[in-house]
């Protein structure tokens, strides 16, 4: 799928209780080319990875992660989150080449 980048998917439960720990799941179509592999002519395939991922809820940054070449293609990432209030959960993948992939999903918090 190296020629079809982007199209990230981000998923949270339909609604969560205030203070409940829930799982956020995400996946991005991306080659995550390490820059260490060689093609059939013995030439290095240039590196192309997602170097940084940021997550924010309702405009407030929650975390920032640095990714490395060891992460597989089409990276799936899930993490636990606890929210006191709802809002728009935004996840952004920053590509080596400057591209930005963005996915957003509404988090609904019920008391």
């Amino acid at each position: 799928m190296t020629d079809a980048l982007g199209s990230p998917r981000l998923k949270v439960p339909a609604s969560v209780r205030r203070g409940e720990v829930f799982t956020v799941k995400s996946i991005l179509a991306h080659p995550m080319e390490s820059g260490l592999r060689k093609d059939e002519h013995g030439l290095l395939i240039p590196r192309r990875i997602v170097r940084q991922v940021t997550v924010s809820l309702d405009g407030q940054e929650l975390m920032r992660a640095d990714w490395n070449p060891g992460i597989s293609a089409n990276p799936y990432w899930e993490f636990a989150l606890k929210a006191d209030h709802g809002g728009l959960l935004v996840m952004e993948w920053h590509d080596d080449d400057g591209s930005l992939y963005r996915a957003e999903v509404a988090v609904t918090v019920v008391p």
Partner: protein
Amino acid sequence: MMTAAFTVPKWRLRWFLDLLALTLWSSTVQAAEVALPSLPTDLAAYRIGQSYSGLLIADPTTREMEWDDVANPGMLWVERAQALWEQRDGQAGKACGDCHHAPASLRGAATGYPQVAADGKTLHTLEDRINQCRQQQMQAAPWPYDSDALVAMTTLVKGQSRGLPMAVRIDGPAARWFRRGEQVYQRRIGLMRLSCHDCHVTLEGASLRAEQLSQGQSNGFPTYRLKWQDLGSLQRRFRECNSNIKAEPLPYGDPDYQALELYLAWRGNGLPIETPAVRK
């Protein structure tokens, strides 16, 4: 009797359950952007008589990956094929969706592939059938065999039959192909003089270094292999298997590979379609 007053009539219970199922179904469809019919999570469903899916000997985390439509990377191809589905191509200016409407209308179609084409001679895999549609109905160029687009469209079409039992026919005009497939399966090839049968029947269940030899069932193809970090066709897997045993891989679409696809599908008749499966 008193108790009779509290007994709910069977039809009413049935009606209530149907309504409940419909409500749950519509809410899941709205939640997910791309959706295929769901897979059974009861492992017993993956064993039919003597046959069992490779899913049973897969790592539990791999199984979870296959069953979760967000974690399953194959769904990225399904999403891509859904865009291709609506895209007009070729001289006729048609898209898949113009004739077939929603992809869901093809539920059940893939269970009978490979099958003999209308000419009574050629054996068509699902990939061939999609390309035939492209050439005849859309008047578009066929997609190369292991191209991203063809693998994606095959996954979208076969995925509509997820959970349905494989049911290929080996009688009539298919019998000739079936016998050829059986011969290919038994034939010892390559420097190691191994046949498909040696590993996947005689030694099935034994260890190959850290791996357990499977029955080599094809019900989950196209499959996302974590080793490939890619979704690949069954014939790509044949080519890999061939080079593993130090045999010369055949070109895509070779009649021997076509026949072998039919033989494998017959071996797995009754197993649920898992496309897109996830394997190590």
